[in-house]
Structure formats: C-alpha cells, structure tokens
C-alpha cells in the first residue's frame, strides 16, 4: 500500500509541475519566437479572484468579413492569420478550418456570424488575450489614464501581442506608444 501511495505521490508531483511548466514553456516560445502585432483596444478594469486586478481589452480586430458564410457556426474552432493596416495595426487576413502554412496564426473559436440582407458575412471570433494583469493599486489608474487619452482623438491605445503557431501572448498595453505600466508610474510620481 505504501509503495502504491509513493508511486501516486510521485505521479501527483510530476502532474502538478507539468501543467505550469508546460504553460510557461508554450508561452515563452511565443514570446521569444512569435511575430509582433499591435491590436487597437479599449480597456476596462475588473478583477479575478485568483489572479488579481487586470485590464480587460476589447479589440477591434475580432471579426473578418467574408463574401459568403463558409458554413461557419458559433463555437467552431478556427485558425486566423493577421496582416497589418496602413497604420501598422493588426487586421485579420484569413480564417480557415485547417492550420495555415504561415509563420504566425491564432487558434480560436467562432463567436457568432453576422449577416444582413445584401451585405457580406461577418465572422466574429474570440481573441484569447483579453486580459492584462496589473498591480492592484494601478489597475484603476491605468483605466483612467486610458480614458484621459481617449479624450484626445490623436492618442491611441493598443495591445502588443506576440503570435506564434496557434498561441498568442499579450506582452504590453500601450497608450500613445508608451507602456500603460510606465504611464501609471509617471502619474504616481508627478505632483498634483
């Protein structure tokens, strides 16, 4: 019995380390080897009971326009690859059911399909990097900084995302080319 418990104990420890280790490895591969994209965004500030305060990001590039439905249905798995618009922000370039032969693509799910009469089909999909975690005292300040920037139409907020083969990692959120973390630090050090 003790031998069995020892084997089970070893198995338990291996499994408990394997999951975070695999998560770290997969994300490090994307961070070091993935291609860099900038996603236009709008942040808000909720909190997670386990991971703390974060800024939720709502991206513009979460839908692709197709001339026909392609039989896409909600909940379906999809592979999306991205290009860049004239300002250098990411835009979805293609969507497929098979892994594309491209250096960077995202594995995601279709949320819903929009279609109005005499208009093309709009396939909405999930962008699985909608959270940017911040120190709890800074999350709401970060949101305020964003909304201040929004008043000035010349300023723009975007998420810096590394995309590999299927996975993506959000590495920073920028407001007018400045990291939101740095921006909050500056706000804290600037006298009222």
């Amino acid at each position, binding site marked *: 019995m003790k031998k069995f418990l020892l084997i089970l104990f070893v*198995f*338990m420890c291996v499994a408990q380390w394997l999951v975070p280790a695999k*998560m*770290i490895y997969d994300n490090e591969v994307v961070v070091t080897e993935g291609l860099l994209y900038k996603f236009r965004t709008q942040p808000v500030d909720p909190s997670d*009971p386990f991971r703390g305060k*974060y800024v939720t990001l709502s991206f513009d590039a979460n839908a692709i326009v197709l001339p026909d439905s392609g039989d896409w249905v*909600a909940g379906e798995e999809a592979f999306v690859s991205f290009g860049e618009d004239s300002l250098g922000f990411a835009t979805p370039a293609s969507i497929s059911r098979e892994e594309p032969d491209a250096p960077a693509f995202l594995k995601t799910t279709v949320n819903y399909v929009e279609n109005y009469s005499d208009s093309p089909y709009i396939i909405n999909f999930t962008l699985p*990097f909608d*959270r940017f975690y911040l120190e709890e005292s800074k999350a709401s300040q970060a949101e305020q900084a964003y909304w201040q920037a929004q008043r000035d139409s010349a300023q723009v907020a975007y998420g810096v995302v590394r995309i590999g083969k299927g996975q993506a990692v959000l590495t920073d959120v920028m407001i007018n080319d400045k990291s939101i973390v740095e921006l909050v630090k500056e706000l804290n050090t600037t006298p009222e």
Partner: protein
Amino acid sequence: MSKNILNDLPELLRANVIDEETAKRITAYYDAKPNASSNRLFVVFGILGALLISMGLVLIVAHNWDDLPKAAKLFIGLLPMLIGQGVCGYLVVKDIPSRAWREGCGAYLCFTIALSIAVVGQVYNLEGNFPRFLMVWMLLTLPAVYVLRSSMAAMLYVCGVTWYACELGYFHYPSMPPWKYWPMLALVLPFCYTEFIMKGFKNNFYYFISWLVVLSVTFCIGAFENHHEDLVIGMYMSLFSVFVLLSELKAFETHRVLTNPLLLVGSLGIMCLLLLLSFDWYWDELDRFTEQDNLASMEFYFTAILSALAVILMVFVFRAKSIASINLKGFAFLIFIALYIMGINAPGSAQLLVNLVILIFAVYTIRSGAKQNHLGILNYGLLIITALILCRFFDTDFSFILRGLLFIAVGIGFFAANYYMIKKRKQNA
C-alpha cells in the same frame, strides 16, 4: 462523557454501586484513552489554519507585484506548492497517520495548486477561461485526496467540480452541458467508498461529503436542461427517487435524519415537485410541451437513465426489505411517469391525482413518524398537508368558509398529533 463518569465516581463509590478496584480501573482506562475532543479540535484548527494560510498566499500573489521580474514572480507563485508537496511527501514516506496533518496539508496543497496555475496565467496575461482553469485545478488536486487520504481535500474537490459545472452550464456564455462533470465527480467516489462505506465508519467528514455530493448532483443536473421544461421535472423526480432508494440501503443508513442528505434532499425534492405539479400551469401547457421532439432531448435521456437506475435500486431494496417497510417516496418516479402519460390526454384528472398522491404521502409520513416515535417526521407530514392546502388557497374556487375550516382542521391536527406523541413518550419513559 468520560469526564462525567470520572466526576461521578466518588458518588458511585459512596453508594456502593462500584468498588474501589473498579473505580481505579475506570480511571486508568480514561487516562490511557486519547482525548477525542482535543484531537478533533486539533484537526479543525489544522484545517482552518491551512485554509487561511493558503488563501492568504493566493491573495498576496494576486496583488501582482509589477516591480518583480517575471522569473521571481513565477518562483514566488510556485514555491508554496513545492512546500506543500514536501510536507505531503514527508507524511507519506514517514507514514504519519495524524489526521490533522493530512487534512491540513490536503487543504493547503489544494489552494497552492490553484496559485501555481494562476501565477502563470497572470505573468503571461492568459485569457480568462475560468471553467478550464477550475477543471485543471481540480484534476491536479484529485491525487492529493488519495495520497493523503484527506477528506478535506475531497470536500474541496467536490466543491470545485460543482463550481466548474455551474460555471459552464449556468454562468458561461454560450452555456454548454458540463459533460466532464460526471467522470470528474465519479473519480472521488472510490475514496468515499474505501474511506467510509467499506469500513462502515461514518464520522463528520462522511456527513459533510455526502451532503456536498448530494447537493452537487442536485444543482448540476439542471445544467443539462435544454428547453424541455416538462421533462426537467421528470428528470428531477427520478433523481430524487434514486436518492430516497439509496437512503434505504444499509450502506447509506445513518442514525439521524439530518446526517442523511439522500433521504432529506430526496424526500423534500419529491414533495416540492409534487406541490409544483399540483398547479394547473404544468398540465395546461403539456400539449405545447409534447409538440416538441421530447424523445431526442437530453432531459429525456437523463430521465430514462435515472429511472432505470431507480428500478435497479428497487430490486436491491426489495431483496433487503419488505415492501411495507420501504419509503413510499422511492416510487415517486413511477407515479410521475404514469401521471405524465395520463396528463397528455386528461390533464385535469392528472392534476387531481397529484393532489391525492400528496395527501397519501403526507398521511404515510405522519404514520411513519408516529410509528418511529419521531416528532420531526410527524410534523413534516403535517407540513406537507399544510403546504398542499396553502397551494390550493391560491388556485381553487373553494369558498372562504371551506378553506378556513381546512386550516382550522390542520391546526387541530398539528396540536393533537404532537400532544398524543408527547403523552405517549411520557408514558413510555
């Protein structure tokens, strides 16, 4: 108890009930016996301490220290799990039987596993797929239940899988049936069987776990509902019948009603459903319900599987007990099936019969309470009748006088039954 006996020893000696030698032997016996209540306290405080420490660690890491580099954040987040594994390994290798250590370590390890996954998600800003997080967390917690033989870890596991099923089935958009809930719940049942039922040892942990499992199944089965409201009632009726029949088996018997969630939830559930069915809305809309493709619905499959399970359990119960001694509410699923078929063509008659069934169950419960000399069961039967009258208060054309007389009659019934029972007890005392 032991303290009371020791305090009474001089009096018993003076009254020559026991001699000097017996008094010494009793004192020696209780001196040598480990103090159960202090052990119990040690277990409770061990668990509480471990829970508070681990939850505190979760909150500290959730602060998300921006100034720390990525590697330091990961190290700090993963270190508590390493410590938990170290303590767990020590307990296993040294074969330490201390319940307080095993339970405390189980609770601590459970939360530090969550911490280890959360910290990686936090560092890499991973998306918030909460049901998946809960599933991975619980599956990594499960081995700790068996390695430490920790009831506390088992309880947290049952809570976790319930949370997972509710997130996916109720709170997630788009909601989807949490199919993995069933195998995940089943994975903890061998622990409950080997730890309590096989040994015939039912302590507080057993009562807590059985309450959690019964409530978990009751809540989570609703997450499989898919717009066939008529069959949802059938699904729940079969489930509650299964609970009542399980409570009839020797393996699940307990000395007190409150410690038997199978009986309590099953019986109360059946009575609530029957009271719901005693209104006309269900029977009036049965036509519309049956126009849907019921036979291909998930609710139908669940009703069929649970009814089949109830029939199998019935065979087992019949072998062990006589029909007269079986709880009548165990047959509720068969009654519902008969009423449902009848209700398709004659909804009025079916509704009337539901009232009759409730009345029979109420009388049966009162009789059972009187037989067992149990005031709680007796009053439960009277409460069923009161609830039935209250329901009819709202939707029938009975005159005010008749309804008033019915209430007075039940009130007198309450008084008379309790008076009779207490008098009988005094005579027997």
